[in-house]
């Protein structure tokens, strides 16, 4: 019932967010990887891929469920909704896996990734920081 309501709301909001911005997958500059495809990203966020190639821990950063970027990210990578993915992470939490860290704003995500070497995040604003490299970019449709 609740999900239906949310779906309805989302559908209702659709006409106003028709023009989506670009989505950037960002990581710390020091990471050896330069490119990351969709499957890798999905594996990381589904807590299936936990280490980079050099052995560092991967630390995925999330945005709050109501953030546009997250909806966009969920749709882009998983072709799903934040709600569905949220319940997946809840389950994973019960299994002892730590879900992606949630940051409240894109600035925070950028700062986080800037500071934590193994962190990976997604933002709609293209970061200008030299400490950040963009691993993937999803253009607006």
């Amino acid at each position, binding site marked *: 019932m609740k999900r239906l309501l949310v779906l309805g709301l989302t559908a209702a909001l659709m006409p106003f967010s028709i023009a989506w911005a670009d989505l950037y997958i960002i990581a710390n500059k020091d990471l050896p990887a330069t490119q990351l495809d969709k499957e890798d990203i999905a594996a990381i966020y589904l807590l299936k891929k936990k280490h980079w190639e050099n052995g560092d*821990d991967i*630390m995925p950063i999330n945005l709050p469920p109501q953030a546009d970027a997250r909806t966009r990210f969920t749709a882009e990578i998983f072709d799903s909704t934040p709600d569905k993915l949220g319940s997946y992470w809840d389950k994973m939490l019960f299994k002892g896996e*730590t879900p992606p*860290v*949630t*940051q*409240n*704003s894109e*600035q*925070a995500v950028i*700062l*986080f990734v800037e*500071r*934590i070497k*193994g962190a990976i995040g997604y933002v709609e604003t293209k970061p200008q920081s030299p400490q950040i490299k963009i691993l993937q970019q999803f253009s607006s449709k």
Partner: protein
Amino acid sequence: MSRFSLSVRLTLFFSLIVLLVTTTLSAVVFYQFGEKINQQIERNLTDTADHKAAEISNVLLFERTNLLSWRASSVMLDVVVDDLDKRITTELINLKQYYQLQGDLYVFNAAGVLIASTQPDVLKTQLPPAWQTQQDYALVFKHEVPFINGSVIAHVTALKPPQLKTQGYLVMTHSWEDISRLVAPKDSSFALRKANESTAELFTPTGVETIAMGDDFAAQPLWTFNQNSYLGSISKPVTVGDFSFQIAAFMPKKLALEPLLELTKNLLLAAALVGVPMIVLVSLLSRLLVTPIKKLTATIRTIEDSNDLSIKVPVSGRDEVADLGHAFNRMTTRLGELFNKFVVVEKELEDLNLSLERQVIDRTQQLQDTLLKLQSAQTQLVQSEKMASLGQLVAGIAHEINNPIGAIYANMPPLEEYIDDIKGTVEFAQSCMDEPNAQKLNAHMAQIDYTFVTDDLAKLLNSQKQAADRIRNIVLSLRNFSRLDQGEIKSVRLEEGLDSTLQMLHHHCKDRITVEKDYALNEMVECYAGELNQVFMNILANAIQAIPDKGRIFITTAKMNDQAVVSIADTGTGMPDEVRKKIFDPFFTTKEVGEGTGLGLSISYGIIEKHQGMLTVESELNRGTRFIIAIPLRLIKDA
């Protein structure tokens, strides 16, 4: 013997017993109870200390637990982004409100810059050195930090997300004031000792003092601070993080001893509650016991004082004292009887004694009298024997002298006659002679002074005649005095005896004493003449001796009522009364020893008594003495 009465002693004795029992009981109870109390106090103190330690550690542990759980909150990951979204700040404020935290929460980032805090206006402050730690968790005990007023305790924990290194620090503070309130002194005082330190902080009403306290807490039985003594006990070590401490609890000794004092009071009260009635009872009992004895004693005293054995002891009851009373009464009765008998016997004995004494005195007197009489008689006997022989001698001499004197006397007249004849013859021859012859004769006669011779011859003859006469008189008086017939009763004229005696004493008084006689008796008196003469001799001799120089002796004789009275008085020295009273006593003399026998007057008295007469004496000192002899004219012959 004690000088206290039986009842007092009994009371004292029982009081002592009560005291002893109470004291012993008290001592035992006191000791046991004291031990228990001490143990209990120690246990209580330990409990209190443990409790306090637990209380404090609970607070700290609770805070620690909370802090560690809060640290794990995902929001804390925002430390990485310096709380860009103020989520940590919000979280901290929420926590503070929700848990009603007394202190504040602080989050520092990895660079040690304060990025979130419940304390306003302190952001960007640098992490204080006290809070810098390499450990996951640290309890920083009482300390100060620049931006907080007052001392605080701080829990410092590192914010270290999984798979990441330390990203910052979460700090929770707790004001020291609040913690110290937990250990503020109430009934007990508390001290906090950090592990491995030799001092402890003692919490007093005015603040915190540092006192010495090592690991050997139990070795010190008594603690002294604030001028008071305390009993102390220490808790087990309590650890929060790597901070370890102990809490010592102290109780004022006075307070600790209060139950003991209470106990003492109660014991004393109990002792008094038991002791006082007991002593009263004992004193009553002893009085009950002693009163009959006292009565008995009083009665005995009364008997002692009054000597009345008929007094009886009042006896009541049937106990031993009553028996004693009965026995005593029986005894007094018996004693009374015996005493009465004794009194009678004593009286008899006394009488007997008295009469015996009187008898002895009488007999002694008789004996003395007899002895005196005997002595006197003996002396008289000797004297009379002496006199008798003297008398015989005198009589013999008188007799012998009498004859030649008689011859001389008798030859006197013819001698005168012859001389006259011779004178006539001479005258005749003268006349018948011639002148020359006559002249021759005259010459011869002148030569022999014839005239003087003839004159003197007459005188000589006369003198011879007188001398012879005197010799004859003396001899006569000697005969008269000695009276060869002495011892026999004769009728004599007393005057003759007196004269004879005077004659014999003549040479003693010749010129110095005049004897005046007044003889008015001139009657024959029947008497022992010789002995009577002796009396005269004694008295007259005494009279002559009593006259020192010249004087007179008066001798009178008279007849008075068939009595011949002879009075011999002198003008001598007389004698004092005390001498006068004794002159008739045998062997009494005023003369030198050896001069007088002291028997003269005594014998005289005896002689006059023999005549049933009276010999009395009157004397006046320096005037003279008078002896009066009174004897009956006719001697009354005694059977």
